[in-house]
């Protein structure tokens, strides 16, 4: 009797936690999942009027669109460079600031300041700095060199990486600092007593405890690496030079051309790639973080 009551109670509690998810699930279904189903359907028909099923035709067409392959190439390159760089630099900054440098709290505020400034104002500043007759080139010329038109150079992707790092390192650093602060002191002390050096401590102890945060920062950085498109778009418009042309430009432009078939196929492909990436990240984290979590 008592046991049964208990189980009923359990079920009630479990029910409450399930009900909690329902409103969000309904919203996500209505605004993302169901329409995304339609997107998948769109990616397999020839046009929205005759609705003829064409299988993977749109995908093969997409693969043969040079604008698309270029855009994918640039985006992949940017993400593979910028995200690890953001991770390493912010972790490095966090480790430095953890050493009790004077004015630590002021520095933290400084590094967070990019979050405050409106994107559009910042773009104005970047324009001033990277313009052909702008700040960087003036500095280069003052030292006798000759500047290049950064926004139209082979190095233009550096600008995106720079903008991305500037905006995101601060908050990543904060996340790492709070994670570093929660590494159990006693374990570090034991390691120190046993003669482990600072570097050993970092790589063998702290990094293990940081692994959930590393995954977290990776995911956040990935999201933000796609959001940096806003800055690039405001900086250079719909058809930027060379390597600045990203996947989002391509999608934006196909949307404006009302070419929903191509856009849908691109969206589905992007989604598939992200599913693979996230699965790999989660599995890796599971592997490394297991012995630490509990």
């Amino acid at each position, binding site marked *: 009797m008592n046991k049964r009551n208990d189980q009923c109670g359990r079920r009630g509690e479990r029910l409450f936690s399930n009900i*909690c998810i329902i409103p969000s699930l309904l919203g996500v279904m209505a605004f993302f999942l169901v329409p995304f189903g339609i997107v998948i359907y769109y990616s397999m028909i020839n046009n929205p009027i005759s609705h003829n099923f064409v299988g993977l035709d749109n995908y093969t067409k997409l693969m043969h669109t040079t604008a698309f392959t270029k855009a994918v190439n640039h985006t992949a390159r940017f993400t593979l460079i910028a995200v690890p760089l953001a991770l390493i630099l912010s972790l490095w900054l966090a480790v430095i600031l953890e050493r009790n440098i004077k004015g630590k709290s002021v520095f933290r505020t400084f590094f967070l300041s990019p979050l405050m400034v409106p994107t559009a104002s910042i*773009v104005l500043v970047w324009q001033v700095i990277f313009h052909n007759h702008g700040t960087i080139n003036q500095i280069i010329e003052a030292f006798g060199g000759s500047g290049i038109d950064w926004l139209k150079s082979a190095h233009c992707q550096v600008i995106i990486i720079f903008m991305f790092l500037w905006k995101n390192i601060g908050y990543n650093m904060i996340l790492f600092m709070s994670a570093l602060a929660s590494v159990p002191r006693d374990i570090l002390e034991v390691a120190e007593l046993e003669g482990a050096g600072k570097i050993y401590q970092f790589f063998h102890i702290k990094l293990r405890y940081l692994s959930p945060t590393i995954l977290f920062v990776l995911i956040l950085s990935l999201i933000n690496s796609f959001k940096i498109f806003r800055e690039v778009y405001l900086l250079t418009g719909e058809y930027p030079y060379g390597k600045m042309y990203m996947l989002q430009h391509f999608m934006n432009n196909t949307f404006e051309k009302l070419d929903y078939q191509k856009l849908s196929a691109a969206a589905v492909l992007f989604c598939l790639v992200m599913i693979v990436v996230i699965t790999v990240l989660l599995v890796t984290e599971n592997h490394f973080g297991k012995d630490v979590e509990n």
Partner: protein
Amino acid sequence: MMTHKQKQHNLDMVLTVLVCLAAVLFLMPTVLTIANSFMTSTEISANYGAMFTNMTEDKKTFISENVNLKFIPDKVTFDQYKSVLLKSPDYLLKFWNSVILTVPITVFQLLVAIFTAYGFSRYPGKIKTIIFFVYIILMIMPYQVTVVPNYLVAQKFGLLDSPLAVILPGIFSPFSIFLLTKVMRRIPISYVEAAKLDGASEFQILTQIYLPLCKGAIVSIGMLVFIDYWNMVEQPLILIKDTAKHPLSVFLSQINTGDVGLAFAVGVVYMVPTILMFLYGEDYLLEGITYSGGIKG
């Protein structure tokens, strides 16, 4: 021993200098925006005009060819602010549009997130894990991927041209759910068990234990969401055709076509809500996204 300490000290010095330099670099654009908002519009055109005439090469008659980065105005003036705040009601109107869009998204996204994250963190199971995975994927999608779904829905429900076309998908965007679930999962089960012994219901566990513990995380997630939507450009551009309903962020992004002289002052005015939020919530933000309990996990 002495030399070791000396070495340590030197290293600290070098690092401090490095961090200082980096910090200045980080702060520079912010300072520049604020400083330039006190310039007269003629001074701004003289310094930055070259950027905007670049496209029409023949118009380069009266403006210097160089784009000069200038921190200190020749003459400090509040003219820009006067024009922004007093002369043209347009800016304030757009500012209000931003508020109408951003505040409901932030508040309701958090509200949805609190319940959903609680649901995800208690009694985990296979189905919940799968749903959570789907949420992570959705969260990562750039706006250009979700724009077609959003557009289709807005069209279907006749929401195009209404702020709701932007607000509703914003509310159900899974970003804060992801963050908050991460926090709630780390709350030790012992807290819950203790509360249960005292006869607390699930709802009470949420409101009396989880919410207070997550206050800092909720405030900082709220700030991140607010900042993100406060700066949105693509969504309203695509989903709200009526430019009169566009937020100031969109307007600000197009300002270089016209009132460049006002650009910086508008930028600073637009920064005010975020600055106020920082003043209130910076300590929470600095905690990172964790729960603030007696025992840190």
